[in-house]
C-alpha cells in the first residue's frame, strides 16, 4: 500500500480525497497556488507545497511542477481528482516516468477515450450502441438525404467545430434537409471558420445517464449503478441522482453490462464513467467515457455504500476488486446539489468575495462535501463550485422531501450562490415526477420564478421593517457581531453578549 499520496487538485474534491487518505492512514500531500494558501485543502492535508501563482496555467496545470513536487514530497502516488490534469495522458506518462503511480487508467485508455472519433469506432467494434449517424463528415446533400433515411428522422446536423449547443440544427422532415444543410454549413463557416458537418440521429427528450464502473489490473470490471444527470443548464450539470427515475432493474443491467463492455474495450483500470444519452424510447447510446472520478460520484457512494476514492486507491496499489457484481446493491435514493458561487437571479453570473458566515445542513441523510469555510475569500479564477450537498433517503419521494428540508437549513452569507435555484427545482412538477430531460432547465427556468409570492410577503415586510427599525436605533447589525444598545439589552436578559 502507498505511504504518501499527492493530491494534485484543490477545492472540495481535494478535501474529499484527503479525508479518505486519512481514513486509510496514508499520508496526504497537496499543492497550492499563491492565492490558495488559505484554502481548506491546504489546512486539511498533512503536507502542502506551493506550486506557483494563482492562474491554473502557471500552477495546477503545470505537469513539470506537479511531478517535481511529488518527488520532493516523496509521494509514491498521485491522485489527480477531476479537472486540471485528471484526463491528461502526458501527465500520467510523466508520473510513470518519475516512478510514481498515477491513480487512474493507463495513458493509452485515456488517449483512446479522449479522441471522440476513435472512441466511437472502438465502441462500434464492440457492439456498444452509438448514436446512428455518419461518424464521417457529410459531403453532399444527396449523401445527407441517404444517411438521414438510414437513421430515420428526426436527424441533427452538427458543425464539427461547434460545441456547447452551438452549430446544431434539428431536421424533422426530408423536405427541410437540403436547405438546412446549406444554412448550417454557411453558419459554421462564418462562426467557426470550418464548415465540416456531421449528421446523426436526433434523440428526442434526451436524458443524460451515466454508469459508474470500476476495473482492476486483474481483468475484473464491475458496474456500480447509474447516475441521472439531466438537470443541466447550458450543458453544466447542477443536480444528479442515483438511481435514475427512468431506469428499471432490467434496463440497469443492460446499461451496466454495456458500460462494462466499453471499459473492457480499453482494458480499463480504476474508477471511470461511461456516459450515455437515452431517448424517450429508453434506447441508449454511448456518448463518451470519463477516465476519472466524477464530481457527482457521492450519489453512487451513498446508494452502494462503497467509498469510490478508497476503491481507486486500492486498485491503483495493485489489489483486486474485493467484491463481485452480484454483491453490488443500490439502497434508497441519493441526490447531489452543486452549490455554486453564481447568481441564478441574474443569469447565473459568477460571484466572488468573502463568506461572511455559513450554516451547513445536518441531520439524517445529509452529506456535505464542502471546499470553503466561514471567513474564506472565494477566488474568481477557479471554477465556481463551492460545495456539494448530497442527500440520501429510503426512496425518491422521501429524498426530495429531505433535500427541501436540507436546503431550507443551508445558509451562505457574503456572496451570491444558487441555493434558491435548487429550491426552485425541487418544486417543479416535472422534477418531482422524475419526467425531465436535458432541456428541462433551459426550457422552464426564468430568474423571476425565484421571487415567490404568498403569505411570506407580509412576513418579509415585517422582518425588513424590524431591521430598519433597529438600524434607526443605531444598532450596527450588518455583517458582524451585534453592537451597541441591543447587545447591552441582550446581556441584561441573559440571552447573548459576553
Amino acid at each position, binding site marked *: 500500500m502507498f505511504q504518501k499520496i499527492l493530491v494534485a487538485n484543490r477545492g472540495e474534491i481535494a478535501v474529499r480525497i484527503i479525508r479518505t487518505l486519512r481514513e486509510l492512514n496514508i499520508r496526504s500531500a497537496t499543492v497550492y497556488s499563491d492565492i490558495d494558501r488559505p484554502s481548506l485543502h491546504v489546512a486539511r492535508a498533512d503536507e502542502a507545497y506551493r506550486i506557483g501563482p494563482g492562474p491554473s496555467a502557471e500552477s495546477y496545470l503545470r505537469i513539470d511542477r506537479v511531478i517535481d513536487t511529488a518527488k520532493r514530497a516523496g509521494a509514491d502516488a498521485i491522485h489527480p481528482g477531476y479537472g486540471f490534469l485528471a484526463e491528461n495522458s502526458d501527465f500520467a506518462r510523466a508520473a510513470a516516468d518519475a516512478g510514481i503511480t498515477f491513480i487512474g487508467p493507463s495513458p493509452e485508455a485515456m488517449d483512446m477515450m479522449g479522441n471522440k472519433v476513435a472512441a466511437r469506432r472502438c465502441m462500434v467494434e464492440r457492439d456498444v450502441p452509438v448514436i446512428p449517424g455518419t461518424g464521417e463528415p457529410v459531403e453532399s446533400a444527396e449523401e445527407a438525404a441517404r444517411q438521414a433515411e438510414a437513421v430515420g428522422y428526426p436527424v441533427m446536423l452538427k458543425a464539427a467545430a461547434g460545441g456547447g449547443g452551438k452549430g446544431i440544427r434539428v431536421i424533422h422532415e426530408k423536405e427541410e434537409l437540403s436547405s438546412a444543410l446549406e444554412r448550417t454549413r454557411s453558419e459554421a463557416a462564418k462562426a467557426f471558420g470550418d464548415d465540416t458537418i456531421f449528421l446523426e440521429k436526433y434523440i428526442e427528450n434526451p436524458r443524460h445517464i451515466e454508469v459508474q464502473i470500476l476495473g482492476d489490473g486483474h481483468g475484473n470490471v464491475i458496474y456500480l449503478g447509474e447516475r441521472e444527470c439531466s438537470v443541466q443548464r447550458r450543458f453544466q450539470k447542477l443536480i444528479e441522482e442515483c438511481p435514475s427515475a427512468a431506469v428499471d432493474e432490467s434496463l440497469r443491467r443492460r446499461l451496466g453490462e454495456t458500460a462494462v463492455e466499453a471499459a473492457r474495450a480499453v482494458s480499463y483500470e480504476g474508477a471511470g464513467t461511461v456516459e450515455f444519452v437515452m431517448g424517450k424510447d429508453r434506447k441508449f447510446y454511448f456518448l463518451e467515457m470519463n477516465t476519472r472520478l466524477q464530481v457527482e460520484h457521492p450519489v453512487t457512494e451513498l446508494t452502494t455504500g462503497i467509498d469510490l476514492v478508497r476503491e481507486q486507491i486500492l486498485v491503483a496499489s495493485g489489489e483486486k476488486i474485493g467484491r463481485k457484481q452480484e454483491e453490488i446493491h443500490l439502497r434508497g435514493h441519493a441526490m447531489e446539489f452543486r452549490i455554486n458561487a453564481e447568481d441564478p437571479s441574474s443569469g447565473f453570473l459568477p460571484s466572488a468575495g468573502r463568506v461572511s458566515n455559513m450554516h451547513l445542513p445536518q441531520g439524517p441523510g445529509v452529506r456535505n462535501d464542502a471546499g470553503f469555510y466561514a471567513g474564506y475569500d472565494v477566488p474568481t479564477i477557479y471554477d*465556481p463550485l463551492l460545495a456539494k450537498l448530497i442527500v440520501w433517503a429510503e426512496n425518491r419521494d422521501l429524498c426530495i422531501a429531505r433535500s427541501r428540508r436540507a*436546503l431550507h437549513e443551508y445558509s451562505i452569507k457574503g456572496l451570491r450562490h444558487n*441555493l434558491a435555484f435548487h429550491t426552485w427545482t425541487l418544486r417543479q412538477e416535472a422534477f418531482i415526477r422524475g419526467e425531465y430531460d436535458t432541456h428541462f432547465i433551459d426550457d422552464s427556468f426564468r430568474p423571476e420564478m425565484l421571487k415567490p409570492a404568498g403569505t411570506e410577503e407580509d412576513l418579509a415586510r415585517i*422582518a425588513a421593517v424590524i431591521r430598519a427599525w433597529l438600524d434607526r436605533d443605531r444598532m450596527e447589525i450588518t455583517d458582524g457581531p451585534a453592537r451597541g444598545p441591543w447587545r447591552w439589552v441582550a446581556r441584561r436578559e441573559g440571552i447573548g453578549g459576553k
Partner: protein
Amino acid sequence: MLYHTTLNGEKKKVEIENAGVGRYRMRIDERSFDVDCRFLSDGLYLSLLIDSASYTVETRRAKRPGVWVTRFGGDYLDVTVRDDLEERAAARREEEVAGGPAVLMSPMPGVVVKLSVSEGDLVEEGETVAVVEAMKMQNELGAPRSGRVASIVVTVGEALETRSPIATIEPVEEGE
C-alpha cells in the same frame, strides 16, 4: 412609526410600535402582529416569533438605499423599507433618473472578452452589450435600458473590478 415598503413592486404602509425589549406590535392593512425578535450567532441571524410562528431570517442591505435582501427558508426577497422622509427623497431621485442615461457596470471581477455593440448603436433593454469572462464562464451583460450607446469605456482584454463601468446607454427621444 409609519414605513413605506415595497415588495415585488407592490407598495404597502406598515406601522410599528415598540412593545418591550425585542418586541414589536405591527400593522399592515387591517392585520396586526405581535413580533418577538432575538439575534442568534452574534447578530448574524434574526429569530422572529410572529404570533408564535417561528422564522429564522437572514437579511442584509442591498446596494440601493433603503433596500434589504431578506431570506426566509429557501427564498430570497428584496424589500424596500423607508420612512416618510426617505420615501420623499427616493421619489425625487427616481424622477431625476427616469429620463437620464444608464451605466452598464460589471457585476463581478473579470476580463472583457467581447464587445457586441459600438458607440452610437441602438439597443433594447437586455440586449447583450459585452461578454465578460469570470470563473471560466463567459457572461453576457445586457443593456440596463433601451436607447443609444453613448460611450464604451473598456476594451477587449481589459480586466474589470466589480462595478467597473463598461458603457453608457442614453434614452432616445420619441420619434427620433
